[in-house]
């Protein structure tokens, strides 16, 4: 790996951006979707859109796992947290995500023992330290995070920690991308692929996009020059009529990914028949549950959870944002009824959500968008 600073050099960025106009046709629009919320954050933090030629538009995809978690799963977490004697642990982002009856943070304010952790291994430590309590880890995230949970469950079994279990909400990247690509009328010309998911699943895992859907994809790193270079690679493909899966993030991502991590996931998890996604609906085989081999560590089998499928709030347009159909500022409640301090939709709760990124970096209105 190289130094981070190399990938933030403003002069190099401007030189790279200067090469882009030659790659676009004057009267054509190019819609490129960054799948990952981490990329969205980079794009706004470094004002990358301002460096792009006219006609090139970045669309924000469903790659923030907090944003795509439906309200029913939040309710399940709250229900488990309200069991007597339970300590529910979760990542910080999850605390304020609204369910139908409030958030985990609100549940904590009325007595539930909900604690933030940085790693599932921290949750396991809390279980060891509190043998008289049931400790549940609310697992969430794509393939980047699932190996951490898998490793933790393997360790819990090996060490024999009977009071530890996992409420599993891990999701997979390919099924929602296929759902987007299968949707009629999708106007996305190319994809900026999620670099750290690819660290686990491998760059080759994104080959289905050009193969099955005739769209180019470039697996990208997260520094501003990574993203700019990935945009250039996509535009180069489009200009030359190529349609391939390319890997801009070779300093980290291999074609096959992290085989140990994938083996750990295969041992601990099994695909769910279907899973509900906020804004995208129910998608087959899009999420992971705890495998039968690890059933004793599955909180869904240890506790009674509601398991309800609930509609998103009517005023919330997170779904259209996640599908790339509207920009965050086009949502009817963006920046008014829905702000990071008082969020209605999950896209505003998570710092990686497209709405929160727009709000945090001042992209509050159409004028700013089109400037």
């Amino acid at each position, binding site marked *: *790996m190289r130094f*981070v600073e190399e990938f933030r050099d403003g002069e190099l960025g401007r030189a790279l951006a200067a090469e882009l106009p030659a790659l676009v046709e004057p009267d054509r629009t190019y819609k490129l979707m960054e799948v*990952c919320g981490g990329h969205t954050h980079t794009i706004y933090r470094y004002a990358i859109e301002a460096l792009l030629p006219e006609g090139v538009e970045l669309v924000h995809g469903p790659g923030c796992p907090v944003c795509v978690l439906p309200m029913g799963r939040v309710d399940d977490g709250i229900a488990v947290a309200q069991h007597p004697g339970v300590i529910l642990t979760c990542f910080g982002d999850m605390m304020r995500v609204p369910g139908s009856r409030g958030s985990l943070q609100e549940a904590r304010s009325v007595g539930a023992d909900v604690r933030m952790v*940085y790693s599932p*291994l921290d949750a396991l430590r809390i279980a060891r330290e509190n043998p008289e309590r049931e400790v549940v880890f609310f697992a969430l995230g794509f393939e980047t995070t699932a190996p951490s949970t898998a490793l933790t469950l393997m360790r819990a079994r090996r060490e024999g920690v009977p009071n530890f279990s996992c409420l599993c909400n891990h999701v997979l990247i390919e099924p929602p991308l296929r759902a987007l690509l299968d949707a009629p009328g999708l106007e996305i010309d190319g994809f900026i692929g999620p670099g*750290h998911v690819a*660290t686990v699943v491998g760059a080759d895992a994104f080959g289905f996009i050009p193969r099955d859907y005739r769209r180019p994809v470039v697996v990208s790193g*997260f520094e501003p020059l990574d993203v700019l270079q990935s945009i250039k690679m996509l535009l180069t493909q489009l200009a030359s009529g190529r349609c391939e899966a390319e890997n801009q993030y070779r300093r980290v991502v291999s074609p096959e990914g992290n085989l140990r991590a994938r083996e750990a996931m295969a041992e601990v998890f099994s695909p769910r028949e279907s899973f509900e996604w906020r804004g995208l609906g129910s998608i087959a085989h899009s999420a992971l549950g705890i495998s039968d081999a690890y059933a004793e560590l599955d909180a869904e089998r240890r506790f009674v959870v509601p398991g309800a499928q609930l509609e998103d709030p009517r005023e919330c347009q997170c779904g259209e944002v996640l599908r790339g159909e509207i920009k965050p500022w086009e949502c009817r409640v963006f920046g008014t009824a829905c702000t990071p301090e008082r969020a209605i939709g999950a896209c505003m709760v998570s710092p*990686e959500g497209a709405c929160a990124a727009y709000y945090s970096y001042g992209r509050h209105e159409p004028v700013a968008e089109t400037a």
Partner: protein
Amino acid sequence: MNGAARGPTGEGERGPGCITCGDVAVRMRVLAVDATGETARCVDAGGRRETVATALVAAVAPGDALLVHAGVALHHDPGTAPVPVRGGA
């Protein structure tokens, strides 16, 4: 927020954001490997230190660079240039 307190998203300093549940990871350098070989004491570019689980990557050694997500190393570059460290190793 927990992630913000720990540091930002991505490979280095990137402002507010949760490093735990998105598609993000942090580059760290190995300072020392524990006796079991299952964890390593690491430091990131901002000088923050952390014990990292290394079971999902090949054997690590001091000076190696790791990509760490939620306390677990996902990628390992042996013998690469050290991540710059503020405040000493």
